[in-house]
């Protein structure tokens, strides 16, 4: 079935005649006979739009999503409210359907949005240079490693265990290509162990990697950690939650050379993990080592203000094997959602959001901590997420997956289990609070946890049993 094409049979005939070909088949004659597929693709035939909608809708109905349950899932992606203006504006053809702005005269809208985005991210991170976005958070962290290796000529990367496990794993993956090694520094009281960090950082260290707030939700003392790294000439990379920067001291003020992170909380929906955007900000010193697109101000021949991609000689299409990064297509539309969301919140709204999160999260940690069997993992300050350890009401060990399943059956996604990434926290979950989770939701979670932790079936009996996957929701 032909969809989304316009040329009819007579059109095709006329076109073939203009080409001087007898058949469309003839146009493929450069493909050697023995390499031709010679059969139809083994895929179903095309369907009508209504059938496609129904099929995709049916698939979507078998996912338990944040509209259908009370979700406290976080761990790097958060169920913030995406304002309606974000959807309305980013779905405009003029933003949705152009390519990368290679022709600036007809791309001023996208370029200006990039410039505004860069300004906002620079404000948030306290660093003067921002690019126009990378793919997403963890690969942005790995990109910061590439910059640090290039800038220092060193190959040791020291990462806090509070760095998102996906960021640490991605950095290890990339290190096979960079020829670098990743050394991990543990946590103490919920934050990076400063003494261990000082021990790990040496003259071979290209950079340290700290997450703010860290994966367990704790606010790190970035300034002190940065000072340790600087003493040895290592770069300071801070992976940060942009929403937390509404209230926290900016990475730039804390001495970061590079601030990167996952931009999803700014105007981007969850989308089961993407697309969102990664951001990348740095000191002026690094401007020519930056990865990705950067928009800059320019003036046209008549003196009008305009914008253009700038410092393009860094990029792959010009510098090729010497490029600062291989990235081409990034996440422009998602970054646009970010700047629209930030404008919508505005200077005051952004701070109010941060304050609301801090207060609700503090309330939640206290409220859940009062439930028998729930114990905060640490008492470090937190912004919008915290970790708790679970016990059966009777004090016995619980099977975390069973607890989460029973909560889910009661309409609550209680949190993100830490066991896969932190074996030492097998019985812990990460609980995230956004402005969409009211006090009533938090109280509801406390009640559900209280009920579930008193149930006999959550207790671990003898040897750990492999969990049996349960029925799909609805």
């Amino acid at each position, binding site marked *: 079935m032909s969809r989304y094409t316009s040329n009819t049979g007579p059109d095709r005939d006329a076109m073939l005649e203009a080409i001087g070909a007898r058949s469309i088949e003839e146009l493929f004659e450069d493909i050697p006979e023995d390499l031709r597929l010679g059969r139809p693709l083994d895929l179903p035939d095309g369907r009508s739009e209504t059938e496609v909608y129904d099929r995709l809708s049916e698939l979507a109905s078998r996912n338990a999503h944040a509209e259908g349950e009370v979700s406290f899932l976080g761990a790097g992606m958060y169920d913030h409210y995406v304002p309606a203006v974000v959807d309305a504006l980013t779905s405009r053809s003029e933003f949705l359907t152009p390519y990368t702005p290679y022709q600036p005269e007809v791309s001023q809208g996208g370029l200006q949005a990039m410039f505004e985005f860069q300004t906002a991210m620079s404000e948030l991170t306290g660093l003067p240079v921002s690019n126009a976005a990378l793919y997403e958070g963890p690969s942005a962290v790995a990109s910061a490693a590439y910059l640090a290796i290039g800038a220092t000529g060193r190959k040791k990367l020291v990462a806090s265990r509070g760095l998102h496990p996906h960021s640490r794993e991605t950095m290890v993956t990339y290190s096979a290509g960079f020829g670098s090694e990743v050394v991990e520094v543990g946590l103490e009281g919920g934050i990076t162990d400063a003494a261990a960090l000082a021990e790990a950082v040496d003259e071979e260290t290209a950079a340290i990697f700290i997450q703010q707030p860290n994966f367990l939700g704790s606010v790190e003392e970035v300034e002190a950690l940065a000072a340790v790294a600087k003493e040895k000439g290592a770069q300071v990379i801070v992976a940060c939650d942009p929403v937390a920067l509404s209230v926290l001291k900016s990475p730039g003020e804390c001495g970061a050379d590079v601030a990167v992170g996952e931009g999803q909380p700014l105007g981007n929906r969850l989308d089961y993990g993407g697309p969102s955007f990664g951001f990348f900000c740095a000191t002026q010193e690094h401007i*020519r080592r930056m990865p990705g697109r950067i928009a800059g101000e320019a003036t046209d021949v008549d003196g009008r203000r305009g914008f253009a991609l700038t410092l393009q000689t860094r990029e792959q299409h010009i*510098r090729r094997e010497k490029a600062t990064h291989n990235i081409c297509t990034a996440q422009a539309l998602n970054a646009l959602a970010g700047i629209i969301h930030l404008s919508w919140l505005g200077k005051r709204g952004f701070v109010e959001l941060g304050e609301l999160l801090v207060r609700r999260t503090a309330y939640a940690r206290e409220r859940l901590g009062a439930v028998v069997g729930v114990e905060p993992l640490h008492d470090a300050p937190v912004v919008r997420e915290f970790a708790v350890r679970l016990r059966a009401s009777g004090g016995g060990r619980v099977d975390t997956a069973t607890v989460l399943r029973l909560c889910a059956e009661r309409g609550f996604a209680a949190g993100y289990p830490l066991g896969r990434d932190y074996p030492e926290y097998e019985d812990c979950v990460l609980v995230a609070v956004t402005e969409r989770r009211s006090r009533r939701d938090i109280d509801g979670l406390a009640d559900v946890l209280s009920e579930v932790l008193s149930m006999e079936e959550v207790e671990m009996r003898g040897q750990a049993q492999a969990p049996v996957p349960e029925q799909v929701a609805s």
Partner: protein
Amino acid sequence: MADPSYPDDLRYHAEHDWARIEGDTATFGVTWYAQDALGEVVFFEPPEIGSQVQKDTAYAEVESVKAVSDVYAPMSGEITEVNAAAQESPELINSAPYGEGWMVKVKLSNPSEGDELLDSDAYQQLLAD
């Protein structure tokens, strides 16, 4: 940019670089042809003072808006001075490639390498070919 010129007092390298040799020191830069081919220079990245340069290898980079070009050392030696003015105002490399647009001064490790370089006529012949 003025008209092409290739002063007689300079020695030339086939990669479009020049050297002004004074005893065991020399000044390096790029030729009129090189700056013209590159277009308006927007950035000049000099090497560090004290670093060693090797004849026939790249020691610096110049950039236009949409191209990057290596700058090759016509002779070997140690960088004693870099042209901060050209770094600040890279347009000097276009407007005065043999004057204010010079790039580095070098203490030569082997002044006899100068004998292998081209004179103005030979370099212009190379351009013509």
